[in-house]
């Protein structure tokens, strides 16, 4: 046997740490509709956490609660040990929670590069006048933003469409650009709402690789919703399963796969 083939792989660069996000007894109602009922789970630092469940299970609602888009009627969220009382999307972004959307929400008439640079807005301190007059700080910030954007473009392998208007791109690439824009904000946690919906097998493989690369390279904690069970089981460290707004399973992909409630929810039993 060869010396190189014998030695073992090392652990991941960013080992999974303590909880970065803790959700405790979250309940969310829209009028009489119970979207989420008494849901508790946590997300560990540097892990890939998946939320799965059949249609209407409350997955997107869950993500929107974390992202600050919805405020739950009951329950509490702790981020890095600190309680978050009133969340909103702006606050979430400032805390380091980035996200992509199920329906692509890019600036359609802007180029890929401009879209990704837009994701850097948080870091820009120069005011309108400084930018308009190209004052030193504005110039410095733009150079920094461009460098970061180019790094992301390289990571996601989208150099060839750098200057292409987003509306002209196929769906799979738009999804990748959206991931790029979210990454530009250098988030601690990245929320991905169905990053692989509507993709073919090859595009799904690419996207899976990019998600794992981001997790590996930047140590970004990832929370994702996905329908494709094969993908979820392959790339997630832990999975939480929702059905009708309730948590029915939580654990490693292997544990979840063996869970009878989960099998029933997916294969369907008479309710």
């Amino acid at each position: 046997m060869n010396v190189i083939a014998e030695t073992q792989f090392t652990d991941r660069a960013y080992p999974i740490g303590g909880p970065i996000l803790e959700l405790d007894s979250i309940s969310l109602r829209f009028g009489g509709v119970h979207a989420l009922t008494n849901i508790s789970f946590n997300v560990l630092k540097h892990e890939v956490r998946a939320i799965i469940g059949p249609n209407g299970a409350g997955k997107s609602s869950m993500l929107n609660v974390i992202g600050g888009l919805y405020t739950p009627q009951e329950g509490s969220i702790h981020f890095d040990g600190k309680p978050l009382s009133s969340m909103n999307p702006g606050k979430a972004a400032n805390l380091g929670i980035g996200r992509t959307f199920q329906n692509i929400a890019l600036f359609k008439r802007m180029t890929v590069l401009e879209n990704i640079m837009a994701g850097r807005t948080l870091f820009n301190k120069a005011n309108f006048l400084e930018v308009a007059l190209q004052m030193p700080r504005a110039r410095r910030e733009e150079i920094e933003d461009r460098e970061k954007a180019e790094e992301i473009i390289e990571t996601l392998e989208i150099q060839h469409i750098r200057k292409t208007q987003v509306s002209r791109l196929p769906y799979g690439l738009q999804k990748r650009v959206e991931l790029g824009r979210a990454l530009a904000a250098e988030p601690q946690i990245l929320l991905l709402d169905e990053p692989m919906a509507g993709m073919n097998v090859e595009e799904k493989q690419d996207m899976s690789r990019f998600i794992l690369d981001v997790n590996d390279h930047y140590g970004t904690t990832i929370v994702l919703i996905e329908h494709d069970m094969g993908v979820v089981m392959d790339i997630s460290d832990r999975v939480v399963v929702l059905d009708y707004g309730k948590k029915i399973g939580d654990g490693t992909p292997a544990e979840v796969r063996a869970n009878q409630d989960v099998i029933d929810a997916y294969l369907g039993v008479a309710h």
Partner: protein
Amino acid sequence: MTLKSTERATLAGLLSARASGSGDAVAIRLKRRGIWLSLKWSEMQTEAGAVAAAMTARGLQAGDHVALLSENRPRLFTAIAAAHAIGAVAVPLYSDAPAGEVGRQIKAVGATMVFAENQEQVDKVIKVLPDCPTVKTVVFDDDRGMRHYGQSGLASFETLVEQGRGAASTASAAVTPDMPAFVFFTSGTGDLSSPVVFTHAAAVAQARRGVSVLGLTDEDRTIAYLPPGWICQMMMTYGQALASGMSIWCPESSDTLLEDMREVAPTSMLVTPRVLDAIMSQVSTRMEDTGGLTLKLFNAVRAAAEKAAGAGSSAVAPPPGFFADYMLNRPLRDALGLSHLRAMLCAGDLLDPGMLMLFRNLGINLKQLYGTTETGYLLAMQGDTAVRTDSAGRAVSGVELKVDQAGEIVARGEGFASGYLGDDAATAALRTDDGWMRTGDQGTIGADGSVQIVGRGDSIGHLADGTRIEPRMIESRVRTSPYIREAVAFGDGRDSVCALIDINTLSVGRWADDNEIPYSGHADLASQSKVYELVAGRIAEVNRALAADPATAPQQISRFVLLPQELSTEDEMLSRLGKLRRSAIAKRYASVIEALFNGAPDVALERAIDESGLHTHDDEHPARLRIGDAPVVSSGQTRSAA
């Protein structure tokens, strides 16, 4: 520093001379993160010296083989320079080759070290390591995704530079011209590829010949984008850069080639007929979108090119009208980044005369090049002005060519291979008794010295009545249509010529959109009767052109099939350079070819089975393939319908 003449005759010596003579000049540029980075000759020499020292510390010795799996990247060239500095042999491989093939080649040369561009290539090497016990070290360039790899024999390029810094030796003095420098694998349209050895002296002689023939100086720029495992690309970049001081420019990725080319504005570049097809297909599509006067002008230029190509014996590109030059040629050359180009050299396969004249009519100096892996990349080249479109030009200075009794072209000159690695019998058979080197190509040499290649011995055929046919010539003509990506002509031992056609999904798809023909994908497009009519129309044009010459008239295509699935490298239907692998195609489509010749209206295609025993593709293919008839022009010549 003055070099002894023996040092000048090695690639390592040439690099030292560059580094000391014009160290601040740019050797290699790479576009990364939107910016062109540069590596100077002196920096390259220092870095290569450090890597060489680290390689020595890891046990690499003179005469050892270093396999390289990488696209054109500055560090690929630096790694080669490092290997050469200690007298090791560089073996550039095709980085898109599957693991199995890479393993066979590493084993064939007994490489002790492998340079891999990135994680993908490292994975490939690790997969084949159990079969390759000689490999002790794997060096990787890009560290992305490499954190998990803790193997002791794995090291990043940076680590090597770090370890070797300070210890940098000037070992190049120990390298002599008769030491092997490179091993290239023959591109192999057949089943086997063989390792071909070149000494430093041979590589230098070859590179110098290229530099003098092309008149290259340190002002020149070339763009490196074809596989470095191909001798043509390696010699036209690394070899010629060392010999002339020109700079090598590496595009950001293969997808950004055309954009980057515009920024580089190369003065010399290598292309293959497939690259030209791709460029022209994109140009035509954009012209169609532009419409109006520009399109009219472009069509006129194209028509003039077809006419000039038909002239055959001595075609000259007509000088463009003042108007066409300003309205079309100059802006187009500028958009393609070809306005500073002095010579675009085409190698790898037969170049279609129409394509040749079209580029020349646009003011781009396209030339067919002729060489084989064993004899080096440059034996003959077409001239600048008048050109016999059916010829690969005349022998370049320093090379003698002749046709032997068996009709094979043989060559004599400097810079040829010293033989096949580890195969003395084949090496001995490479040269004729009187010392000429065989090319393996059938051909003729005209009174004016122009070389005509008919094809590798195995690709020429004869119809049942004995008429000679040249499938490659027929295919290259058919391929000029933007709608046709690939064509495979058959006819050896048959009554007529028939062809398998692979349509260009993109352009046919666009055509279908314009004509409001709904389709779901490649297989669907390729089964539509309207598309059959479109292709039949193009084949009819080719047939008319073939009928014009009595020699080619019997070679008209009578029937064809549109393939439901693209011919690809992955399916092993094409070689690494995109050449057809005829025997593999004939085997895969045996039933279809049979049906083409027996007159059946359609044929069932059995599904392909891959190595794991699984069907490679889903049930998206139609159960039966339609066979199309193409109008054949009667030449008045009577042929027996045996």
